[in-house]
């Protein structure tokens, strides 16, 4: 199998090189999305299915949508690469050589936190170690990361972008019918991925990505969906962060400590947080994409 890995890594390196060397922006973007897919594949090979799923859905899928939407709004202009000074090359080479040289020693010291994770997994409320780390052992990381997403959305709004409800892409009835048929399935998948996260790869991020896709589909099919003027949607944006921190404070009330759960309630609380987080992630990501569209000269209904 080493050949497969070598091939994959070679492809990844080649695409990365292509991406930063592209002459046209379109090429760079397409290569970047392709790179995202291959990277996801590599991560699956690295026994990290959670990360692979998230990367495929978010890193390649939604990022691709955002990139293409942006690209459409840029004037066509050639990429003019910066000439690099030889000094820069020297520093870069030095950095590279040091990095490659130093990394060798890392392999001989197989240290990890897995023993601790395994010891405490029974108290974590979930049996999937990644979810346990994300939602329990290092819960504050995850909570603040939701905040990063929320603040990125806030930033986008501050820049004057918001989902334009007057803009309707008319795609005909085929899509509308198909979306109506597929929507329950997507909801089911989202819930399944979320619930499965407690014992196997999956969880809020992946579920949120599916939800975001569902919302985008709704909008594409011109079906009633996301309206940022609605309170429910606005609350949905904050829901993840709010619920996460309120549960965190609950831990203080119960004497476990901030961001802690009583072991017997952990499963339920984590599921609660994950549901809110998935909803928020879905709403935020969908809003981000939708808000990035109006600049496109599209057809208006």
């Amino acid at each position, binding site marked *: 199998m080493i050949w497969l890995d070598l091939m994959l890594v070679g492809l990844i390196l080649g695409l990365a090189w292509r991406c930063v060397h592209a002459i046209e922006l379109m090429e760079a973007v397409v290569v970047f999305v392709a790179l995202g897919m291959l990277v996801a594949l590599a991560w699956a090979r690295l026994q990290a299915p959670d990360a692979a799923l998230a990367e495929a859905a978010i890193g390649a899928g939604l990022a691709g949508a955002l990139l293409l939407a942006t690209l459409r709004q840029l004037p066509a202009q050639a990429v003019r690469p910066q000439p690099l000074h030889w000094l820069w090359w020297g520093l870069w080479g030095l950095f590279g050589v040091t990095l490659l040289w130093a990394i060798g020693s*890392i392999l001989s010291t197989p*240290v990890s936190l897995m023993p601790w994770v395994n010891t405490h997994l029974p108290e974590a409320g979930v049996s999937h170690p990644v979810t346990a780390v994300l939602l329990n*052992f290092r819960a*504050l990381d995850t909570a*603040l990361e939701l905040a990063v997403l929320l*603040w990125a959305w806030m930033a986008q709004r501050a820049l004057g972008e918001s989902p334009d409800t007057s803009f309707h892409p008319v795609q005909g009835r085929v899509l509308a019918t198909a979306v109506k048929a597929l929507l329950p399935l997507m909801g089911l998948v989202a819930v399944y991925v979320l619930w499965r996260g407690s014992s196997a790869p999956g969880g809020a991020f992946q579920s949120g990505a599916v939800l975001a896709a569902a919302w985008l589909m709704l909008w594409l099919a011109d079906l009633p969906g996301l309206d940022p003027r609605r309170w429910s949607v606005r609350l949905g944006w904050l829901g993840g962060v*709010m619920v996460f921190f309120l549960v965190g404070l609950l831990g203080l009330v119960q004497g476990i400590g901030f961001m802690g759960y009583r072991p017997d309630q952990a499963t339920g609380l984590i599921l609660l947080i994950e549901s809110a987080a998935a909803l928020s992630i879905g709403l935020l990501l969908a809003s981000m994409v939708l808000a990035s569209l109006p600049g496109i000269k599209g057809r208006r209904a």
Partner: protein
Amino acid sequence: MTEWGLAALVVWPLLWGALTLVMPVRWAALPGVLGGVFFGTWVLTWAPQSVALGGWLPPLGLSWRLDGVSQFMIALVAWVGGLSSLYAWWDRSLPSAFWGLWLGVWAAMNALLLTADVFHFYVTLELLSVAAVALVALTPGPAATRAAFRYLLVSLTGSMLFLLGVALLYGRYGVLDMLLLRDAMQGDGITALALAVMTLGLMAKAAVFPLHGWLPQAHAKAQTVVSAVLSALVIKAGLYGLLRLWLDLFAPLTSQPDSQAGWVLALLGTVAIFWGGYQAFRTPALKPLVAWSTVAQVGVLVLALALMVEATTRDSDGLTETLWRGWVWLVAAHALAKAGWFLAAGTVQKRAGETRLAGLGVALQRSPLSVFAMALAVVSLAGLPLSMGFLGKWWLLSLAWELQAWLWLAVSLLGSLLTLAYGWRVLNLGLSTGHGAEPLTPQAPLQTVPTRLDAVALILSALSVLGALGGYWYWEAGA
């Protein structure tokens, strides 16, 4: 009880900041700011402590560490942030989106100052970057947008380098907690490499020369209050990170008696002092002048860090009380003075409807409070007596003396003189009556800007001067 308080330091501004999306903005901002100031002040009364979040002890869980450095830095954020918020409250030209973003910056700063986990540090850095970049972009116009983008790019690259360092450290030691890492630290190549990339990343964020290129534009083009909080506080996040890296996390490495790495920092700081000062002396507009001054002052703080590192190589006590107290004092002096200067500069520019220094004469003379604020700020930044900056400089000079670092001693003195030189450019104009005996006539009618804005600037600058009277309390009684 203090654990509630610690949680509130992060959760309170974050929740109210988030609520600005669903509530009338100022209704959410007011409790957010007041609570932020309240908790940020209260923090001074708590005992230094570590808190294992969620009850999970490191290395498994995250932990918060409240020590002297973080205590005073949090309080500094609260006070400078609180007073800047007062300015923002009265500044009618500020978009309402400011409040949510600003509360995000505040929460991120507090979280960053509390955390004892390298990866969590990265997450807080990113939250800080996102909110701070958006704050810069609040100013309409291509110049501000370009500045914001550049800031974002540098900030992201810095974060990535930092994360690379985190990955290397985890690969080498298998832990993420700073204290555990420090205890396990070995002097091998990979550790040194991690230190190098993390330092580079933070230097980009803190605008340490030669990675300062983004700062003058970003800080000069931003809204007045944004410039103030970015220059006074957000920059300090990176510097605080450098302090943690060099004097805490990597202390076993950096305090080796034969370690010469500190001198690289000292050299960069020195160049920053002169280059920033020179640019501030030359730039034609007011806010860029203040922004370049930040580049120079960051140089002073980095130079101080380098001297502290050098001090730890000479004796084995590590980061002693006098060392960190002196540095945090310098940081506080700079934060207060710089916030005051930026707010005053922005107010004068608003009044004049003009940014070039040459066109500000009349506005300066009609803004005595702002001129006074700038004068006090310059006094403190240059380390003239009797100001916080003066005591800070006294400490720095004493430290340099003890280390027999004559070159750096001379550098910090010359840096002060350079500060006076560019400060003089502004103040001189405030006292000038124009060519000949006739008074200056304004090119355009002055805008009406409420005087209370000047007053807020003056309060901040005055604090950076009068704070000196609290020196003994800070150094002795506070210990």
